[in-house]
């Protein structure tokens, strides 16, 4: 259904079923402001219209998609640990000090994403207070905290629950998944976005 747009032309008037195509046309006309860069290429090569629009949509919306994916991962991680904390409130089943792991992962998330890639490469407009070296050290510490919290969550799972052969392993699994989700959310938010779209 997408391929015949290129042949007919974009929202062509000669389409036999305008009633069916009207919602689709309305939905895409809302997005013309976004993929305006695609118009010229579509005009040049009509046969590749649909494929071009797909790749351009991904390019223009890449930051939005990455932000939403990172948000889903990060907050799903926190809701997993909320679930574990609510289900097992006493210290024997779920030691409250295990929450520190997720807190450090969140701090690492903030530290990683507070520094832009341009600042690390040194091609940003403003130097900041410490410049490129400070940005690199900050990012280094942030990634160290992120990996450290991920490793610590595995340690909690195996050292605190599996090796002790506790009856309820779920809090350990919840801690591990919380940290894994926050970690990958941070990676998606950091590397899934491109800063070319900011200019």
């Amino acid at each position, binding site marked *: 259904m997408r391929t015949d747009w290129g042949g007919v032309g974009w929202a062509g008037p000669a389409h036999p079923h305008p009633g069916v195509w009207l919602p689709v046309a309305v939905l895409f006309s809302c997005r013309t402001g976004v993929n305006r860069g695609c118009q010229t290429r579509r005009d040049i090569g009509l046969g590749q219209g649909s494929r071009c629009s797909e790749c351009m949509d991904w390019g*223009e919306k890449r930051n*939005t998609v990455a932000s939403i994916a990172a*948000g889903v991962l990060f907050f799903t991680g926190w*809701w997993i640990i909320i*679930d574990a904390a609510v289900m097992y409130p006493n210290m024997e089943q779920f030691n409250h000090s295990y929450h520190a792991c997720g807190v450090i992962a969140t701090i690492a998330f903030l530290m990683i994403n507070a520094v832009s890639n341009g600042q690390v490469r040194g091609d940003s407009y403003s130097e900041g207070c410490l410049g490129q070296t400070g940005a690199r050290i900050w990012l280094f510490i942030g990634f160290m905290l992120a990996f450290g919290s991920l490793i610590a969550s595995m340690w909690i799972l195996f050292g605190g629950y599996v090796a002790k052969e506790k009856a309820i392993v779920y809090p350990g699994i919840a801690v591990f998944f919380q940290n894994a989700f926050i970690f990958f959310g941070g990676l998606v938010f950091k590397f899934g976005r491109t800063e070319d*779209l*900011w200019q």
Partner: protein
Amino acid sequence: MAGVKALVALSFSGAIGLTFLMLGCALEDYGVYWPLFVLIFYVISPIPYFIAKRVTYDSDATSSACRELAYFFTTGIVVSAFGFPVILARVAVIKWGACGLVLAGNAVIFLTIQGFFLVFGRGDDFSWEQW
């Protein structure tokens, strides 16, 4: 004229979503009104977008860090709205059927909010300043 039709359709779907939410709370099998707190999530979900829109004056850039942060927080609010009734059902405050109704209401309401921004957010003939 299309704006009025879209407005009526969106308010209809919003009413459907709120009906799902109230069914999850008020059916005599359920009768627990804690899920109504998701209304807070509905209200605060567009706020990051509004803040980012006011803060970023540079409109010719296709994206900005502030707007992406707003998307991140909006996603967090949406995820929280889905996570909250699940937690309530996990600790047996509400039943799983009520949780399902609330989740359905969540989906409809957030699609309505999304539709509101898709229909009215980018149109040149309609701006928020007119309100």
